[in-house]
């Protein structure tokens, strides 16, 4: 059921068994797993069902390191950041959990085998279209092919993309949570403090404030923070009544090791064959699944050379006219119509899409002589096309035949590629200096605001350079083209186009050693009996793959642990 925190009487105390703070991917997954149990579950959500600027402004903070949008990278309403999730999924591999030689703080206390049973259910939760992840199987099903590389140093991998209409956890699971009798979702409920016993070893309640002003508390036997990497750290650091450095922060680790998949154009390939197919590395359909391939150093090679993981997405830059055609509105409309027909879904504004495609298909008629008994082009059109090279004719094609016809032509004969940009997304090495701290400024509810000091290190630079060098050697050897690495070998700066991947991770890292991690292998905060953390803030390393599937798998594992250990 849903309730409104603004209607809870001031200074009231709400009692529950499990209190989940946050309703993003982790919070909702956890709450769903607890439906129907003889336990009362309360989910506290800061926002409501839609974006609200005032609530979102509670996220505002400073970025004092590498450029990072502290507020825009997350969303503060029911469903959390899944409300603008890109839907890209891939489970992590064994090596993602293992320590790397020469990389301090790398390695997880759990192994892939510990998480493996949860990946398939996590894929169902995330609505991933296919349970298949093996490259060979996708290559067998796919008309497109990956680069044929001759060694095992660089490999292709496949990510699946959840259809846009299925991405938002809030939309997907709202009805299920509304019907759940033992789960109450309190909207407009902002947690501002975690209260503990005198020893600071057991959480007793959380203090809740709403924007209109009423405040109350929620007491529970178990608390789970699921508010994302920045807010989890913020809440722990701000809860300093019993522990002056904040909860779980006895070793000054809360907020440290902030990580994201930094992305930038790491290199550019001049292709040997400008008409080579890049389809495998572009978003495309294989059966009912949307997939996209990427390149990476192989896991064996990463372990052998002590490299962190990375994703290299080859992004072809087509000739101007071709590029415009590929992304034209009429082609998008046609794709949308075909997809909706195939899936039996309705599309808003279907008529508009039909008209747009029809107009585009009729482009060629503008160049037929009106009044002729059959369509015959003007003499100057015939002359121009007859006297053109293939390249010139292709340049004129969108204007003469329309975007849809040109797209069909390109599909079969290949579009001319000017260059291939390598969009590089890196797993950054664990870095204690990359961190979230509190500032003196406060938000509307009196919570200290955060400063995010996102940092990359020389290890990251070396990692990218080495990985791109390996890729350059491989594609050169395979005759695919010549690679120019754009990332400078030395120097303090990073490329101007560097951006975060909006994958916020690592501020409450997992370790069996309380001196190296904030939470233990069960996601419980070291030194506390009943305070847990769900979400990617517990990731000790950030892997090369996207985090959502893994954080959902971890939330399922945590749910099972709570079910096993809690008695009604």
């Amino acid at each position, binding site marked *: 059921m849903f309730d409104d925190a603004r209607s809870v009487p001031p200074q009231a105390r709400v009692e529950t068994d499990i209190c989940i703070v946050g309703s993003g991917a982790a919070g909702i997954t956890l709450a769903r797993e607890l439906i129907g149990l003889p336990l009362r579950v309360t989910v506290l959500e800061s926002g409501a069902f839609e974006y609200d600027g005032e609530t979102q402004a509670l996220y505002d903070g400073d970025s004092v390191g590498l450029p990072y949008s502290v507020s825009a990278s997350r969303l503060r309403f029911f469903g959390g950041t899944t409300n603008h999730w890109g839907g890209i999924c891939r489970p992590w591999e064994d090596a993602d959990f293992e320590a790397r030689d020469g990389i301090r703080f790398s390695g997880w206390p759990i192994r892939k085998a510990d998480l493996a049973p949860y990946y398939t259910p996590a894929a169902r939760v995330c609505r991933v279209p296919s349970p298949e992840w093996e490259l060979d199987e996708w290559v067998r099903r796919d008309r497109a092919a990956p680069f044929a590389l001759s060694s095992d140093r660089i490999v292709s991998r496949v990510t699946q993309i959840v259809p846009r209409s299925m991405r938002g956890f809030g939309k997907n699971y709202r009805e299920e949570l509304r019907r759940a009798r033992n789960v109450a979702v309190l909207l407009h409920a902002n947690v501002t403090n975690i209260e503990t016993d005198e020893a600071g070893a057991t959480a007793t309640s959380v203090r809740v404030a709403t924007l209109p002003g009423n405040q109350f508390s929620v007491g529970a036997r178990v608390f789970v923070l699921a508010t994302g990497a920045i807010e989890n750290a913020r809440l722990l650091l701000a809860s300093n009544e019993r522990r002056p450095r904040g909860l779980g922060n006895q070793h000054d680790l809360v907020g440290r090791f902030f990580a994201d998949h930094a992305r930038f154009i790491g290199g550019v390939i001049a292709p040997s064959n400008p008409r080579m197919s890049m389809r495998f590395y572009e978003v495309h359909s294989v059966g009912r699944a949307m997939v996209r391939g990427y390149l990476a150093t192989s896991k064996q090679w990463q372990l052998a050379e002590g490299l962190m993981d990375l994703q290299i997405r080859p992004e072809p830059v087509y000739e101007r006219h071709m590029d*415009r055609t590929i992304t034209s509105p009429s082609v998008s409309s046609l794709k949308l119509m075909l997809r909706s027909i195939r899936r039996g879904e309705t599309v808003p504004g279907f008529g508009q899409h039909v008209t747009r495609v029809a107009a585009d*298909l009729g482009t060629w*008629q503008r160049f037929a002589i009106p*009044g*002729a*008994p059959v*369509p015959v082009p003007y*003499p*100057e059109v015939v002359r121009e096309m007859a006297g053109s090279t293939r390249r010139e004719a292709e340049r004129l094609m969108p*204007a003469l035949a329309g975007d849809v016809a040109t797209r069909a032509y390109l599909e079969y004969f290949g579009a001319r590629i000017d260059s291939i940009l390598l969009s590089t997304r890196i797993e950054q090495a664990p870095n204690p200096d990359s961190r979230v701290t509190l500032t003196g400024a406060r938000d509307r509810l009196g919570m200290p605001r955060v400063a995010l000091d996102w940092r990359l290190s020389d290890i990251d630079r070396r990692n990218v350079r080495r990985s791109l060098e390996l890729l350059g050697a491989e594609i050169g050897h395979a005759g695919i083209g010549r690679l120019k690495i754009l990332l400078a070998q030395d120097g303090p700066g990073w490329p101007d186009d560097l951006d975060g991947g909006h994958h916020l991770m690592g501020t409450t890292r997992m370790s069996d050693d309380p001196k190296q991690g904030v939470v233990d292998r069960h996601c419980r905060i070291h030194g506390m009996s009943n305070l847990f953390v769900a979400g990617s803030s517990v990731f000790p390393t950030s892997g090369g793959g996207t985090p959502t599937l893994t954080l959902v798998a971890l939330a399922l594992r945590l749910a099972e642990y709570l079910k096993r250990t809690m008695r009604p």
Partner: protein
Amino acid sequence: MPRRLAAWVIDVVVLTALIFAGASALAALLGPTIRFSPEAATLASTVTVDTSRVALSALVSTSLSGAYFVIPWVVLGASPGQLLLNIQVHGEAGGGALPPGRAIARWVLLLPPFGAVAALAVGAPSLSGLVWGSAPAWYLILLLTTVRSPMRQGLHDRIARSTVRPRAGENA
């Protein structure tokens, strides 16, 4: 029936060639209707269409088309293709060639569909795209109604009150 179809194909090919030649002559005299600038900054300016010239082309080609069919039907009782294959267009009641009004009606029903769609494309591209399929559909209707009629009178013949027969002493 095969001879009628063959005559139609001959007429269409000859008329198309004439119209193409007419458009070439116009282009030589007045400059091209379509201009190409492959290196233009925007796609819209890669190929530009002079709409006043399109109107002139439409006028010239429609006039040529009308003249090609209507005059021979009224004067000789057959279009050039029909003359070549020894068939004639009569009034429904038999006897002589079609009077001008019925010849024009027959031409209107037979010729302009594709041409009209092409003209529409300049002014209302989306409408043109939607109605493009109607031109082949119209010809299919004419063909089917002709084949199914005992007198081989298609819809256009029935409306124009015309029949197509072999010349005297021939079997169509």
